[in-house]
Structure formats: C-alpha cells, structure tokens
C-alpha cells in the first residue's frame, strides 16, 4: 500500500502519444468509453477469447503502448459492428478498433511511411501521384517502338525490362511487408522466450485464416465474406500468373511458352487470357460490391467508417483492373496505340498498389490478420476457429 519499488515490467503510462496518434486516425472518441464491457459482451468472437476488446480500448486510453502492440485483438475483430450498436455511450468501439488497426500497422511498419500516409490525405495523395509519375517516367525511359500496325506489347515494353521493374517493386514491397510482419511477431511475442505452441502445429490455423478468410465467415451478411474471398483469390490468381510468367521468362526460360502465353490467338494464350479475365472479374466484382455497400449506407460501413486510405485502395485497384481490361479489350479490337497507353498506365499503377496500398492500408490486413492470429496462437492465446490437435485442450476446430 505504501510506495514500494515496483518491478520494471510494470507498465508506465507516458504522455499522449498513443491517443494523439489515434485521434489522427479517427479514434478520438475512445475516451467516451466508460468501460462497461458491453462491446466485449456482445462481440461474437469474445466467447473464444481469453481477453477482451474493452481491454484493448483501455490500453489505448491508458497509453500502454507495449500492451497494445502485443495485443492481437484488433486483428481478430472482423468489424461486424455489433459493439457500436450496443455501446451505451456511442463511443463507436468498432471505429476505435479500426483506428487501432491502422495504428498498429503504422507501428509495425519500419519505414514510418504508414503513419504519415494513414493520417494525412495530403501525404497519401502526394505519395500516389509521385509514384505514378515515377512509374510513367520509367516506362517513358525504357519503352521501345510503338508498333502502330498491330499490337506488339513485347516490342513496346520488353518483358525483361518490365520484369526488372516488377522485381524491384516486388523486392521493396516484400521488404516492407516482411519487415512489418517480423516486427509484429516481435511485438506479439514480447518477452515470451518459450512459445506455447510450435510454428508447425499452428500452421493449420494460419491456413484457415488465410485461405478461408476466417473469421469473416461469421459475418451475418455473407456477401462480405464472399467479397473478401473473391478479392483474395483474385489477387492470388493474378500473383501466381505473374510468378509463372517470371519463371518462364527468367528462371527457366522458355521463350515459346512465354510467347504463346502472351498471345491470345494460341490456345494456351486464350486460356491464359481467360484466367486473367476471371481473376480480374473476381476483383472487380468484389470492389464494386463493396462500393455499392458503402454507398447504400448500410450499418456496417457507418460503423467502421470509410477513410481516405480505403478510398485510395478502391480507386487504385479499380483503375488497375479497368486498365487491365482495357488492355485486353483494345488488343482484341486491334487498337495498338490505345493498348499501349492502357498498358503503360496499368503498369505505372502497380507500384501504387504494391508500395503504398499493400504495406500501409487495408490491403495489408490480408497479410497481418492471418499471421498475427498465427503468432498469437503460438504464444498460447485462444483464437477463434483455431485448429488444435486433439488432446491440446481445445478439441478440433
């Protein structure tokens, strides 16, 4: 009861940094919360957790940064919005969760760009424009002749050079993401030296989260889950297609296969085209679906709020998909110039997706959510829909 020496692990509340950041990220209502626990009680996921969402909000209120960083809870939330409907103070807990997610992303990110971009429309717009211009510049510098007779994409932009651009963007993007993932791992694990579960035994849960987009499946509105699956698999498909091209072009060069893949008149090429079209359609559909849902003003979206990063993501993906479709269309219609321009824009937009949207915005959720659930499971926490071996005290599924 008297002032003693507390062990150094006692968290110390420091002045305003967390809440200052959260305010900028849209979570300013968090002090209205009076800790009643309604949000936790109504949350569909709470029953499978050992801790509570209210506690996460509490950590933020009390500026306990390292507790927040080691808390995987914001990632286990799939923003159903029930908590905001139930909150007696209208503190909008789902919005606070959302801003916590963005806060965490900005903390995981080692480049410090995330924080800037998430809290400022200006910086985000600037970053996008700068990258786009740089992309166009690069294309301008490396482009070959623009054959006006027929569509010759490989002539216009030699695949090897495009690949170079792709690889460099990819490496940077991966560095950012993996860096973030590693940092998140360190934060979650905090001071645990002996994880409760091994990385291999926790893999099935990771697979579930990643491949089945859990816990989105719990949404009452199944469309959200379907949208998430479509966009995930759409991008996965496109990614695998790009990887295939990379392998065929550089790793195990096979110019004929490469050429026929790229030639829609060949059977392989048209199959490839179809695959691409399907993937694009999946992405396009889910993007449009989410726009429509937000415009309809449905409860869910009022609750989590659409921020500028969301809008940017939607716009960029939309543009990429559309320009991709234009490339295809113009090629089929034999409009070389239009094809080249569409292709140029299509390519110049890619860095935006991979260098800004992927690492720093909602897109990164696709990576962070499953992996952080995975880390948390390793740490020994209870995770919803976890896959546990029999005899580990959790039962299957």
């Amino acid at each position: 009861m008297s002032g003693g020496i507390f062990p150094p692990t006692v968290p110390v509340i420091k002045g305003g940094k967390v809440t200052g950041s959260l305010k900028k990220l849209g979570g300013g209502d968090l002090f209205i919360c009076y800790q009643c626990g309604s949000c936790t009680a109504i949350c569909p996921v709470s029953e499978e957790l050992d801790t509570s969402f209210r506690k996460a909000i509490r950590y933020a209120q009390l500026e306990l940064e390292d507790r927040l960083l080691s808390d995987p809870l914001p990632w286990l939330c799939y923003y159903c919005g029930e908590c905001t409907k139930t909150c007696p103070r209208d503190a909008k807990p789902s919005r606070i969760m959302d801003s916590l997610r963005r806060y965490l992303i900005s903390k995981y990110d080692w480049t410090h760009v995330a924080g800037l971009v998430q809290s400022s429309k200006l910086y985000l717009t600037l970053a996008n424009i700068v990258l786009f211009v740089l992309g166009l510049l690069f294309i301008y510098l490396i482009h070959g002749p623009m054959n006006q007779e027929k569509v010759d994409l490989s002539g216009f932009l030699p695949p090897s050079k495009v690949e170079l651009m792709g690889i460099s963007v990819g490496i940077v993007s991966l560095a950012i993401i993996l860096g973030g993932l590693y940092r998140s791992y360190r934060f979650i694990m905090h001071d645990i030296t002996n994880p409760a579960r091994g990385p291999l035994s926790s893999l099935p849960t990771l697979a579930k989260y990643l491949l089945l987009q859990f816990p989105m499946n719990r949404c009452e509105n199944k469309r959200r889950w379907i949208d998430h699956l479509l966009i995930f698999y759409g991008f996965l498909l496109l990614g695998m297609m790009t990887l295939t091209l990379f392998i065929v072009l550089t790793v195990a060069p096979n110019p004929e296969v490469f050429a026929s893949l790229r030639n829609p008149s060949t059977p392989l090429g048209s199959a490839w085209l179809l695959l691409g079209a399907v993937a694009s359609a999946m992405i396009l559909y889910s993007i449009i679906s989410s726009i429509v849902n937000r415009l309809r003003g449905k409860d869910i979206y009022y609750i989590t709020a659409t921020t500028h990063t969301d809008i940017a993501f939607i716009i960029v993906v939309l543009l990429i998909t559309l320009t991709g479709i234009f490339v295809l269309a113009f090629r089929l219609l034999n409009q070389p110039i239009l094809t080249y321009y569409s292709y140029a824009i299509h390519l110049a937009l890619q860095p935006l997706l991979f260098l800004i949207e992927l690492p720093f915005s909602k897109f990164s959720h696709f990576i962070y959510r499953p992996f952080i659930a995975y880390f948390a499971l390793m740490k020994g926490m209870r995770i919803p829909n976890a896959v546990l071996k029999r005899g580990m005290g959790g039962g299957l599924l």
Partner: protein
Amino acid sequence: MSKPVLVLGGGIAGIQAALDLAEQGVDVYLVDKLPSVGGKMAQLDKTFPTLDCASCILTPKMAALLRYPNIKLIMCSEVQEVSGSAGNFLVRILRRPTYVNWDLCNGCGTCVEKCPKKVPDEFNMGLSMRKAIHIMFPQAVPRKALIDEKACIRLNPPPELKEKAKGPLCGICERVCPAKAVDFSQKPETIELNVAAIIIATGMELYDPRNIPEYGYGKYQNVFTHLEFERLVSATGPTQGEIVRRSDGRHPKRIAWIQCVGSRDVRFNSYCSAFCCMAATKEAILAKEHMPDVECTIYYMDIRAFGKGFNEFVNRAKKEFGIKYVRGKVVKIDENPSTKNLVVTYEDTASSYMKKEEHDMVVLAVAIRPSCPPIPVDLTADGFVKLRDPYLDPVSTTKDGIFVVGVVAGAKDIPDSVTEASAAAARAALIAKGYEVPVAVDGGGYLA
C-alpha cells in the same frame, strides 16, 4: 383571507407539501390521477438505507391528510389546462367517473367480494388480479371503491353477451352495496379551480423495458422490474411477501439485478436515475432476509452509494448478507425454454472475460421517466421540469407561482423530495396568504 393552493400529485412529496400547507392554515387541493394517494412509495416494501417499512412511515402521513379539514382530495383527476398567473391561476381539471358516490361509500368492500369480473391489478404491477369494482389497496386514502369501466361488465359489456341480453348486464355491486353508493350514470366531471399557487409533484413512471428488447422483458416470464419485485417482496403484495417466479411459482435460488437499464445510455436516457443502485441493494438484502440461501448478484457499472448511510448499507450488503457485486453491463438475456431460467451475457471487467451466467430470476433497474403534467413550464432536454435557478430560487419552475418538487424535477430519493416539498409549501403559502408575489430578480432570486 388566504386563497387555496393546488398540489398536483399525491406521492410522498405531494403529501408532505399538502400537510405543510394545511399546518400553516392554507386551503389545499390535492389532485391525483389515481384513486388513492401514496404514489410509488406505497408500492415499496422497505426503504433504504434504514430498512424502514415504507408503509409504516407513509400511511400515517396519508391518514393525517384526512385530519385537516382544509385539505380536499380530488382523486382520479388530471389537469387539463392552466392559465393565469401567480396569485390567480385558473385550473381546469377533469375527474374521471368512479361510478361510486364517494360521499356515501364507506369502504366496506362488500361490492368487491361479489364482483364477478377479474382483471390484472395495476397496484401489484399486474402480478395479481383485482375486481372490476375495487379499492386500490387496503390502506388506500381515501378508502373508497371505484369501477374500472373498461373491465366492468355493465359499463362495457362484451359484444357476445350484449346481443343476447335484453337490458343492462350484471349490476351486482349496485344491489349489494349497503350504502347505495354505486352510480352507473356518473359522467366525467370538469372542475374549475382558482388557486394562488401550484406545486407540481407528479412523480415518475418507469421507462418501459420493452424498448430494449435484448432484455426480454415481457417475453421471458422471469424478468421483472424493480416495482414488480417490490410488490412480490411486500407483505401486502400479490404473494404476501413470497418471492416467486412467474413461470412456475417456485422460489428462485439465484436472483440477478441488472443496473442502468435504459439509464446512462445515450440511446435511451443519458441521465442517471440516482437511486436504483440503492434500490437493488435493498431488494437483494430483502431477498436474503426472506430466503437466506438465495444467491444475489448485482451487475453494475458504478455503484452510486452517495447519500447518508448509503455506502455503509452497501458494505453491509456485501459483508453481512454476502451479496455479490459484479462490474459489467449485461447486454442481453437469453431464456432456457425448458426451465425458463435466464442466462445473462456480460463482461466481467474485473477479469476481462466475457461470461454467461445463469439465474432463475432477473430484476431490471429500469430508468425513471418524469410524469410531466400539461402545465406551461419549461422542461429540461431530458424531459424533467426545469428549475428556474437551482441556487437562488430552489423549487421554482420557470413560471412564477408554480413550484416543482420530487422526481419530476430530477432523479432523487425520498429525503430530498420531502425537503423540497416543505420548501415549496412555504413559498406557496406566502402567495396564498396574499404576501407580495416574489418578483424574479435578474440572475435569479427574488426581491426581499
């Protein structure tokens, strides 16, 4: 010569004001929409923190009203319109027909015994039945019978019987009444009063918990409100003090009180209803006194034990009676369809776990809503009657000569209501006796 004062509302605050006014020689009209005075306090079993029996301290005051010849009770009446100004108000009151001549009725109760029609008893919160002709409760003041015209077979004959019968139905009460007091021809009566001042003491109603369907009130039989529980635990209540479940009439073994139902909630009422924490504590103690083995749990957000003796009362509840206090707001109640037990869902903020707990009876601490009469005074944003200046002109409304006391001006407990009542009575008496009407000074207060 002094003019009369109108006291609107016959709860404890109205009664106290009327008694104080009469004591000072002023004529009083005490108007209430119910057939008896007593208000909500008459429905309570015991009061906190002294555990005084509410009837024991209230009924003598009620009886005292009858000892003053200058108090006139106008029951079953409501104000329709108020006009005029301080010293000279014109009040139009509508008195509902009781179909019994109260000048003749002596409250013997013979009619009640013989009446064939039963309907839910509002005084017992619908937990028991009463007859169409009835006396509100045994200690009612005035103790007179009245007929509920909607229930009465004569006044409101059911269509199928009406056709078959030739002429009026039933009428048993009229025949058996030894005082010949039953009068089916009574009509609503308009009463016009000229009064010097008005004291608003109309009290409160409970916020309807059906507005919050997550708690299942009305659907789940074993979910009660505070007032219903008070009736159950009262010796003069529907079960003579036996706390029993609605579904099977058995004693509960685990009772839960859920605080802040519709209070402190921006979706319903953002204010705090002030006394429900203490009411729940008291009820839990009474439950323990009646059934020593019962488990009582109170789910709260903050325990508002701010008054005299309150904190000690809560400590007593915890230590002496073993009542459990759990900090966590209950968000919903689910019913087990076979046992009709209730499962409450909440977060136990002391451990950060989401929990579900089963109870066999749940009592909801619903918010109070003020019962504002149609009088031209300002109201606050929450709907309570607004005080002109709580510091310099306590108990005054925004209209000169109209005062307000009790919970209709803001959630408070009995001592505060009684205090206000005495203060308002003295102010009203001044006006009634023809002293200079207080002139509001800029910023409040009045010229001395």
